[in-house]
């Protein structure tokens, strides 16, 4: 009862300052803009036809090797019915892919295998198995490798678990049969028309899927708009909660109640969290709903950004609350929370940078060890960004191959969930415990 009373009181305080109202109005504008975005609908046959031009590119990256001239054709696109041995593809689609000339296709496969897992700029000019002048294949690939190439290209374009069978070599041409499970075209890369503000502006997009666009918009909303701007506004808006509570004349009225002080402190802390819970919840759920209605993508991954943002803010607000309690100054609480955020973000970024393969840094260097140590023991605020992106990618059905493809070889987000919640949670608990102890011991 007292807990709900404190939450209600914090909500009233937020509403009185109009900060909550302003953020809700701004969120409404974002939701409106999201709702105004239209996504052209593609047929599966169109998307498969689009693949024709994409097979010519090396697997593992966006760009073709200019010295390899393989050509592809697609034929016999047909729905899969109830066929014996093909039950898992029932309702899906099947088609044939032909690759020629055979030697050029073989070069493409060998080259793709050589650059697999590498970044564009690391690609070699020559590779083992192909002559230096790129005219001959010295070690022809196996049929499994050729099937792998077709599958890899399909996965890059977000086809989920395609089955590729080698039908045979017909003269100078390799022929494959591809089986696809039933999939919404919203998840598949293909050209489509994107419109905004209910058709006021339109763009023709190629080589991307509706899911990619939805992911980009949602990741921007959750990671940048809510995750940076929203959290910063929330820190500023809630920084005065604790200093206001402990100001002379107000704190007396609270401490005279039959409640332990630590509960008052924690309840007020939770009152600050309600600010972000409401605004982030409204923005995330609202934008998710309108975008789902418009795009047909109802994957719930984006919704996970809501609790993740609240967790992110909870970590920063534990700093703000403690500083507010110790200094009685909202300005000090804002500044030190922002500085903490900046330092932790810098440490998080430094950790990723020193461990990037292309950084070529000696991993035994003292700076690397210092960064590793700081990253291991300090709150993982930077990881929350990664976590928000990762959950969306997983839920939006964007595979690692496809993500690398659409992000120009960017790293698929990796999150150590136990460390994220464990280390950050331990810090939050420690800061709050310190606040409770100080609040309980102090004379007012």
């Amino acid at each position, binding site marked *: *009862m*007292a807990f*709900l*009373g*404190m939450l*209600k*009181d914090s909500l*009233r*305080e937020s*509403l*009185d*300052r109009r900060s909550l109202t302003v953020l809700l109005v701004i969120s409404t504008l974002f939701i409106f803009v999201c709702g105004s975005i239209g996504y052209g609908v593609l047929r599966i046959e169109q998307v498969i036809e689009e693949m024709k031009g994409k097979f010519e590119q090396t697997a593992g990256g966006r760009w073709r090797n200019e010295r390899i001239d393989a050509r592809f054709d697609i034929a016999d696109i047909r729905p899969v019915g109830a066929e014996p041995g093909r039950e898992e593809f029932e309702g899906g689609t099947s088609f044939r892919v032909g690759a020629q000339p055979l030697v050029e296709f073989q070069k493409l496969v060998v080259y793709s295998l050589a650059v697999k897992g590498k970044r564009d700029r690391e690609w070699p000019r020559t590779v083992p198995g192909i002559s230096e002048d790129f005219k001959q294949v010295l070690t022809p690939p196996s049929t499994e490798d050729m099937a792998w190439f077709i599958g890899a290209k399909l996965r890059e374009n977000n086809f989920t678990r395609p089955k590729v069978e080698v039908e045979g070599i017909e003269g100078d041409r390799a022929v494959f049969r591809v089986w696809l499970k039933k999939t919404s075209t919203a998840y598949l890369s293909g050209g489509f028309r994107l419109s905004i503000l209910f058709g006021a502006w339109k763009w023709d997009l190629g080589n991307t899927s509706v899911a990619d666009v939805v992911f980009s918009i949602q990741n921007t909303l959750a990671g940048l708009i809510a995750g940076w701007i929203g959290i910063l506004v929330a820190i500023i808006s809630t920084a005065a909660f604790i200093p*206001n509570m402990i*100001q*002379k*004349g*107000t*704190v*007396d*009225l*609270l*401490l*005279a*109640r*039959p*409640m*332990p002080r630590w509960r008052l402190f924690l309840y007020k802390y939770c009152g600050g969290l309600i600010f972000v819970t409401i605004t982030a919840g409204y923005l995330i759920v609202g934008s998710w709903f309108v975008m789902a209605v418009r795009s047909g993508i109802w994957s719930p991954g984006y919704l996970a950004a809501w609790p993740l943002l609240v967790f992110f803010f909870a970590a920063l607000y534990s700093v703000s609350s403690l500083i507010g309690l110790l200094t009685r100054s909202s300005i000090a609480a804002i500044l030190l929370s922002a500085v903490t955020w900046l330092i932790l973000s810098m440490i998080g970024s430094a950790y990723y940078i020193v461990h990037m393969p292309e950084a070529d840094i000696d991993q035994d260097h003292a700076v690397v060890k210092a960064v590793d140590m700081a990253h291991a023991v300090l709150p993982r605020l930077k990881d929350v960004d990664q976590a928000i992106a990762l959950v969306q990618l997983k839920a939006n059905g964007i595979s690692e191959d496809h993500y690398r493809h659409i992000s120009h070889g960017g790293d698929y987000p990796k999150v150590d969930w136990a460390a994220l919640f464990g280390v950050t949670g331990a810090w939050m608990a420690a800061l709050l415990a310190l606040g409770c102890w100080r609040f309980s*011991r102090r*004379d*007012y």
Partner: protein
Amino acid sequence: MPVIETSRLVKHYKGVQALKGVSLSVEKGEIYGLLGRNGAGKTTLVKILLGLVHPTDGEAKLLGTRVGDPAARRDVGFLPEDHRLPDYHSAESALDFYGGLSGLDGTTRRARIPELIELVGLKDAGKRKVRTYSKGMKQRLGLAQAMIHDPRVLFLDEPTDGVDPVGRKEVRDMLVRCKSEGKTIFLNSHLLSEVELVCDRVAIIELGEVRREGTVKDLTRVENVYALSFAAPIDPLIPELEKRVKSLRRTEGGIEISVDDVTKLNAVLDFLRSSGMNITGMTEKKYTLEQVFLDVVDRPDAGGKVA
């Protein structure tokens, strides 16, 4: 069992000794007044009793429970001096908030809030934000929040501060009504006349020590000093009277005498009557509480407990 009890309560603040062993006891149903100059230790004492300040030494109990234990404050209401109710609240929402923190359920709060708002005279302003209130209105709301959970003990620090004379009378009446309901009231006030009017017992605290304590009547009474007035001039009898009293002072229309005891007083009266003097009036001499207070705070050695 005393409702409020302190024993050798000591509080040090960074080199300042705010309380130097305060011991006092307040019984159920009493209105107890605490008087003292600014910085005398009144607020520190109240804050220790309410758990806002931790004592350096000594013991204090509220309703039999050691202060500092939140349970001790379950049946206690507090109106601090210079209190600041959050200005984003209305009277209704503030009372709902503080009622909830005091452990009242929603149904009880909904029933109690309109009653209290009417009782403190804020009926027409119940939904207005506190920031629009005058000082007197805030004080009335402060009183209401102290009483929201119908506590058995009320600590009131300057309850009539900023309240107009009519309002003060209403507050006094309310205190008397609370007392009649068996509540115990601990009152801090600079308005000595007000304390004199409502308090059963008073303590005067100075430099962290209780210098005097007792009923208002006892504190203000002056032992064996009487004022006499006469129908005719008393001058001829003065020399003889001076031999029969400890001291004598002429006043307008009579004299003021000090005697050892009532027997001596009767002897003086007998002498006056036998001398043919008509006595038109006699009153026992009394000080005002203000005089007693000033006497205590001006003279560091003045003190003692009056039974």
